[in-house]
């Protein structure tokens, strides 16, 4: 806005005022940035929200062939009890056939291969796919199917077809006993 004032010397070089101008605006930018940081940071998850971040699931309650949905961090999380045939099917898929290549072994805990725990929101736009109930439409790959935009997941929760870009995410979890998994 200061275009109407002359502030360069005749030869076109920088003047003392130009230097002062740059220094001042730099100081203003740093100061404003510092002041803005707490305002922005306050909108991040707060300590009490982060404290709600573990959930325990008794996986023995999940019948073979079906899945259940539990709440973790306010979102659905799938716990699927897979049949040996479904595990077989997941492991037979070559990585080259996958959009987001990941082996089935990477997605489960060793010795607990039957239990697949994944986030329950489609990686496309966040809908909750069908497939936990045996009677649900599980899509072409027998895992989950999101009818909203047509994404198909396999029995390892990996994306196989449709607009979703990524596999259903596997959260941090561990088995704290033979039958209880703690998510988060």
């Amino acid at each position: 806005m200061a275009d109407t004032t002359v502030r360069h010397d005749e030869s076109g070089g920088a003047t003392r005022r130009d230097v002062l101008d740059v220094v001042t605006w730099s100081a203003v930018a740093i100061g404003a940035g510092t002041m803005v940081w707490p305002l922005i940071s306050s909108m991040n998850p707060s300590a009490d929200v982060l404290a709600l971040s573990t959930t325990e699931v008794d996986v023995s309650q999940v019948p073979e062939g079906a899945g259940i949905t539990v709440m973790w961090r306010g979102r659905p999380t799938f716990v699927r009890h897979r049949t040996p045939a479904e595990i077989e099917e997941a492991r037979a898929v070559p990585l080259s056939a996958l959009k987001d290549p990941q082996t089935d072994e990477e997605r489960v805990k060793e010795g607990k291969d039957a239990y697949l725990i994944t986030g329950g929101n489609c990686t496309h736009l966040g809908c909750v796919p069908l497939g936990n109930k045996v009677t649900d439409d599980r899509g072409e790959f027998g895992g989950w199917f999101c009818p909203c935009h047509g994404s198909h997941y396999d029995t390892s929760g990996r994306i196989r077809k449709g607009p979703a870009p990524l596999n259903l995410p596997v959260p941090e979890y561990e088995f704290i006993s033979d039958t209880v998994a703690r998510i988060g």
Partner: protein
Amino acid sequence: MATGSEQVVFKNKTARWIEDRLPILGFGYQHLVAYPAPRNLNYFWNFGALAGIMLVLQIITGIVLVMQYTPHTEMAFDSIERIMRDVNYGWLLRYAHANGASMFFIVVYIHIFRGLYYGSYKAPRELLWMLGVVILLLMMATAFMGYVLPWGQMSFWGAQVITSLFSAFPLVGDPIVTWLWGGFAVDNPTLNRFFSLHYLLPFVIVGVVFLHLIALHTHGSNNPVGIDLTKKDKIPFHPYYTVKDLFGLAVFLLFFSYFVFFGPNILGHPDNYIQADPLVTPAHIVPEWYFLPFYAILRSTVYDSIFTPLIVFSYLGITEKLMGVLAMFGSIAVLLVLPWLDTSRVRSANYRPIYRWVFWLLVIDAVVLTWVGGEVPTETVVLIGQLATLYYFVHFLVIMPLLGRLERPRPLPDSLGRPVLSHGASAQPAE
């Protein structure tokens, strides 16, 4: 670029394109860059800009705090404790906002006393001054309602006391109070509407501030000498006063930061960390410091001690309680008509040998009233409060009209430049 009246032509193509369709850049340029300001403004002229900055800061911190606050009697207190403990930088934002209110009032009070000293309220700036008083009233309403939101003991009982003021009016008093409360006590509906209005009023203030600035820029800023200035005595606002205001801001932020980081609760009352309890009144209900002078006036107008003769008003139906309310509102209303109460033609107190002392008496009076407002009203305190209240009104209603006629002002210079350029320093005030 010494004056702001001429058409601005921007070199930047985009700026020209915008300016041709919405002349907002030229408006900003004329009022913030080119605005011809008197070249003799002293540091007391920093406080208008500081007040504007505080308003913006309060709005910004407030908007972010509201994202974490719950306006419900059962959850408000806890939501604030959550802000203090769990929300990232919540402590900083809340302390900046709560102390920011105090800082805003400090800045605005200095701004007002500056206006009083240099006669900034006199023609042709009467509306400018009156808009300022409106801003003060809006600020007081906003600050009061904001103080209620944490739903602590002082919040609750402060709301109780202030809303009960309206019960002083005969006949309509009680229905008005019920209406204000939205119920039969200060309760959830009261908290909700206070929250709504606390969010709304700052934006109304922004609107009135714009009017205040338009009124200011119509005739230009007053100055320490108080004479009308020619073009020659003015300099562009930028860079001269932008730099001066920035320096003032830096110093002010040091002061502000001391409170936020080292004494965030010095200006608050510890009882507000006790959750509101409608069944227990705090031992001593006091408002925030910036309301103390008005609170003192409210409490001093009892028909007792030196005000015993006022008992005649009780025969007219004006109870002590109503008198207190009237006096308190009157203490601000008197400022609205000050431009007509002050009969002196000379603006600056620098050229008014008696007024410059009377001004300081008013400052002392305000300090005394502040002290009285914070004390438990014992007999001595009431007497001091009554004397101070009396003086407050005598200052505006008696001294100001009379002094203008009786006082003989010192001769004013014709311009700022002439005495300096001709080395005639004698006509230039030392201040």
